[in-house]
């Protein structure tokens, strides 16, 4: 809402108050440090701001504010990101900035994020309806039928039409090039397009409202399904935590892992989890590792930390196959150091959708203890 509200402020506010502008610009710039894909929309909103304030004095003021924010906020944030994650930028920017190697972890991870969609319906129709794995169970992951409202426009009244269209073309093009083709990344452009409806003369408005109201009932029902999950897992659970086990992803598995390992140990799992009491090193990085140096770094990281257990999902450790996104197969170097089999345990996969649908998928964990002194090489 911050970026959308900033856009609304720029469009609908006629007076220039330095204090307010400082707040608005500060918030806009801050958004890029929250979720870095918001850089793209922030740039376009900033261009809109400059376009609406052609007065030279205003421009100097805006640039002064930006300079101050850069020095006192962005710079420390970039230092933090570089210190912890080797780079101040998100993966989609890093892939362009790392000129040394053609294939790298950032590039691979960025492509994975960009290609992720879980929808069989192609773009752009897939933004408005979701059908995946032969089911409409994720139909709520869509922008819905609100776009039909544009058919009911009788007259466009807004003075900001050109700016809105400029923004929409800009953001849709940039999103198409750089980010996932999923509805959430098009939620801001959708909201901004609704500003045309906001001011337009609409024909058959009561009929349109009825159509949208049907969608509202559907959205309300989706919320009604989530509410019992929220309440039951938080306030109504019993000693056995049955609701948490049923609805929260891997909750049951990590309760068992905590029981086996104890607390504050380094362990290897496929996916980390909030309910773990240990420090998980994930095997999923092997999907993105693209060259020898990165693999060496990963092994060094394992060697530096005193890893105690390995949790292999659905397969005994020796049967695990690690292949990255480019199809390169890695040796199963884990099996050499995790020779001692401890136990295996199974449970039913948890899912919030279990409140409506029947899922009977079983997950089995195979537990191995590390041989003392063994090094990964």
């Amino acid at each position: 809402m911050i970026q959308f509200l900033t856009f609304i402020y720029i469009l609908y506010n006629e007076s220039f108050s330095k204090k307010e502008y400082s707040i608005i610009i500060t918030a806009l710039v801050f958004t890029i440090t929250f979720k870095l894909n918001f850089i793209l929309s922030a740039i376009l909103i900033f261009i809109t701001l400059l376009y609406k304030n052609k007065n030279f004095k205003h421009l100097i003021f805006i640039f002064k504010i930006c300079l101050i924010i850069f020095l006192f906020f962005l710079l420390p944030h970039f230092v933090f990101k570089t210190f912890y994650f080797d780079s101040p930028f998100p993966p989609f920017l890093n892939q362009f900035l790392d000129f040394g190697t053609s294939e790298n972890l950032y590039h691979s991870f960025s492509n994975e994020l960009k290609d992720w969609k879980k929808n069989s319906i192609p773009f752009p129709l897939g933004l408005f309806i979701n059908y995946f794995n032969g089911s409409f169970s994720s139909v709520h992951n869509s922008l819905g039928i609100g776009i039909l409202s544009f058919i009911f426009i009788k007259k466009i009244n807004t003075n900001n039409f050109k700016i809105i269209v400029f923004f929409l073309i800009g953001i849709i093009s940039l999103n198409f090039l750089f980010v996932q083709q999923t509805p959430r990344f098009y939620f801001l452009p959708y909201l901004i397009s609704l500003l045309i409806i906001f001011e337009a003369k609409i024909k058959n408005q009561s009929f349109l409202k009825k159509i949208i109201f049907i969608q509202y009932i559907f959205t309300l029902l989706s919320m009604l399904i989530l509410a019992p999950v929220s309440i039951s897992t938080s306030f109504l659970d019993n000693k056995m935590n049955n609701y948490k086990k049923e609805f929260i992803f891997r909750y049951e598995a990590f309760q068992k892992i905590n029981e086996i390992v104890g607390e504050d140990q380094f362990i290897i799992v496929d996916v980390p989890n909030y309910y773990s009491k240990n420090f998980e090193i994930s095997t999923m990085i092997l999907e993105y590792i693209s060259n020898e140096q990165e693999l060496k770094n990963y092994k060094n990281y394992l060697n530096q930390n005193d890893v105690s257990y390995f949790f292999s999902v659905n397969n005994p450790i020796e049967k695990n196959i690690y292949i990255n996104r480019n199809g390169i197969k890695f040796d199963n170097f884990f099996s050499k150091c995790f020779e001692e089999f401890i136990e295996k345990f199974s449970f039913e996969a948890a899912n919030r959708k279990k409140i409506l649908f029947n899922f009977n998928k079983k997950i089995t964990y195979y537990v191995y203890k590390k041989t003392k002194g063994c090094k990964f090489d």
Partner: protein
Amino acid sequence: MIDNLNILLSTINSLVLLYFLHSSAKLVIGSLKLTFSKSFLNIFFIFIFISFLSLIFQIILVFDYKFFFKQKENIKILSLIIIYLNLIYCIPNICQNIKKKITNFSFNKIWITTFLILVFVCSLGIVNDADSLIYHSKISKVVLAGFPVNYFYDNPHYLLIGTYEIFNIFPEILNISNFNALLNFYVLLFFIKFIYEKFSERNYNLDLFLLLLISTPVITILITPQKSFFFLC
């Protein structure tokens, strides 16, 4: 029983913390004598507070990654004292405002109120969506357990973390795991209030616009988890 009591207490703490941020925003808006919509500015100031707090946390983490692990109990006690003192100080105002706001705004649009109530109920729950379990809420747990989040080989999704995930250390210290969902509810509430405040005089399609917004199916997965996506967009 004890677990449920702890969750109940942490839910109360989350509401009191949100109220603390709200009243701090109001105080700043009043002292700066800003004239634009208060609902609009409330959202912005809370966002700026969170960003600054996160920035301080980031600087601390660069110098000492175990700081929060070592100091979490002290920070918890101090923070609880501050936010509850603020609540006690503001109780007369809260009672007056609740009465005024209910009669003025919410219940004359039953479809908005119903939606807001459901969002509020969903926002009270503990972390239960996969992305939050894997990284949005996970990283603050890692920091508070005193582990070194010094590279991304442990979890590549950490490459995506930003200011909010670092701020999240603060609610986690207070055992609050639902703060971002609650913040999403707050933002939606004040956004709707702002739209009616600012645009009710001219002939805008207010109801249709808000109906289109809250009926968008994807809003359910943007507003209920512990992600900052809805807050930002």
